[in-house]
């Protein structure tokens, strides 16, 4: 038996979930946010008192609620993917609806949070801390809203039978975008809400 005839063990194929273009988009988004996070951290180091005073007016429980809502939403998106893999369309749609409801909880908390800070008399132009606070969190919130629109489109297409276990690359793209939004918040939460003072 020659070396070429010896059966080779199968090497598991490395698969990138979703479409390649979405990953380029995700890479661009992560880069932009990384720059903003670093700018925030450097500015905080330059003006620690200003940031400590500003963070004292931000409710950590609101940030905690936002985080729990987004993590729960990501959980339902993964559950939806699992259901789609088993070709259970109805279950997939319901899990996406639950993910959207969790995202709505995030938006509601964020609304109350902004209202509270505005009632205290602070806005985007109050000082560097509020510029970053509103800028970073609102920019992230727009990504959540965009992600929700993507999830709605996915739910409609699942209901129409466009996706199934053999055809779910688009679905994976949308799901990965949603998890990226969650990943960004995982860093934003400690940076803005937890590490105060």
């Amino acid at each position, binding site marked *: 038996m020659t070396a070429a005839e010896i059966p080779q063990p199968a090497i598991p194929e490395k698969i990138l979930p979703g479409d390649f273009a979405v990953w380029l988009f995700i890479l661009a988004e992560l880069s932009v946010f990384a720059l903003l*996070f670093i700018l925030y951290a450097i500015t905080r180091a330059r003006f620690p008192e200003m940031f400590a005073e500003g963070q004292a007016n931000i409710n950590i429980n609101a940030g905690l609620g936002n985080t*729990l809502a987004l993590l729960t939403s990501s*959980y339902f998106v993964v559950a939806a993917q699992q259901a789609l*893999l088993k070709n259970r369309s109805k279950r997939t749609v319901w899990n996406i609806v639950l993910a959207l409801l969790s995202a709505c909880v995030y938006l509601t908390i964020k609304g109350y949070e902004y209202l509270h800070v505005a009632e205290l008399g602070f806005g985007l132009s109050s000082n560097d801390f509020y510029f970053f606070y509103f800028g970073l969190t609102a920019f992230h919130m727009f990504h959540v809203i965009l992600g929700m629109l993507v999830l709605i489109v996915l739910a409609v297409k699942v209901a129409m039978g466009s996706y199934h*276990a053999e055809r779910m690359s688009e679905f994976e793209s949308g799901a990965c975008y949603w998890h990226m939004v969650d990943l960004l918040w995982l860093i934003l939460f*400690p940076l803005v809400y*937890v590490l105060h003072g």
Partner: protein
Amino acid sequence: MSNVVDAKFTGLKLIFLWCLLIAMTIATALLAEPYKVTIGLVAIVLMVTVVKAKVLVDSFMGLKDAPLFWRAILLAYAPVLGLIITLTYAF
């Protein structure tokens, strides 16, 4: 067939990972709330964030079996930022 979320990735494992993420999130909030921030606290909070990010990237995004380049970028994101943020608290 693409299998980002493997069928073997059971519902129970998913619930466990979600509970883990929730528990770590609450723990960091409780840990940091009463104390003045020190470099040690910053490092601990950001290390927990790195673990959370790893769970999200490997299990939720499904990059555990993805090409090394993409997995490395996503896995390195939180630790690199965490290190930079920690350094800004050190100076």
